[in-house]
């Protein structure tokens, strides 16, 4: 079918992605875009072992992903594209044109302020999200399909935390 979800999630492949979104969206493949993981066989094996046997995982650096995305969009199966940070998604938006981005999980770290239960942002990251929106990308935060999507303005205003 296509890439059904473009998600920013610093945990990359984990329960919410594989089960929470994977089951209802009938996801058969995940495109994991991360420069570090894409160059580590060990990390790739780690993530492959986290998914059911029928689910494929493809690994790309950000630059490789830009050229590979059209192929995944034409794939007859349903897929999810994941990045671990906003900057990587920004590169994909610039290079491959993405209409909507899901902020799925950016967790607590020094310098970040809590905006939602599952979203903590630094001032730089806030600017990056605003920049995505300024380019016409629909940015919403939503950890799992059953949760209410939170619009960017509401997210940056503190959301529902």
């Amino acid at each position: 079918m296509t890439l059904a979800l473009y998600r920013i999630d610093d945990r990359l492949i984990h329960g919410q992605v594989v089960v929470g979104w994977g089951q209802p969206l009938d996801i058969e493949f995940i495109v994991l875009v991360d420069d570090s993981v894409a160059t580590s066989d060990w990390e790739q094996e780690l993530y492959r072992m986290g998914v059911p046997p029928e689910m494929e995982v493809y690994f790309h650096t950000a630059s490789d992903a830009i050229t590979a995305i059209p192929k995944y969009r034409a794939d007859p199966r349903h897929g999810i594209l994941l990045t671990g940070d906003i900057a990587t998604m920004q590169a994909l938006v610039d290079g491959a044109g993405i209409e909507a981005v899901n902020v799925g999980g950016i967790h607590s770290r020094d310098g970040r302020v809590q905006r939602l239960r599952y979203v903590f942002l630094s001032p730089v990251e806030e600017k990056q999200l605003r920049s995505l929106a300024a380019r016409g990308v629909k940015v919403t935060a939503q950890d799992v399909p059953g949760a209410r999507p939170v619009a960017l303005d509401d997210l940056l205003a503190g959301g529902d935390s």
Partner: protein
Amino acid sequence: MNSESGVVASENAPRALVAGHGEFANGLVSAVQQITGRGDQLIPVSVKDLCVEDIENLLRQRMLDSNVRVIFTDLQAGSCTMAARRILRGMDDAVLIAGANLPTLLDFVFAEGRTAPEAARHAAERGRAAISAHGASA
């Protein structure tokens, strides 16, 4: 000695960390305590709100502080499982059991006389075998 149940855990009793989504760890350890009085052999770890690196650091620190070499987690794809697998990469004497359930932990806490890794692997088999389906056929 557990003050509520009066159960005395042997020095040879195996100990482990339990980690997972939501209240998984606290809930399972609470259930083990209620059933056996041996909940203090298990250390529940909450990873709420933590990023991947902090989950790994927290689990590693708890293992080192408590001298525990067994981790039970809930889901193969879960962040705790991923973090534990990274920790095991540099800890040859440790074992991870992913997909743990209550029967798994009940078997583990009674496995005196086995090493903790042996007890964990035995418990994993018991936990797997303890799942059954009843009622209407598919």
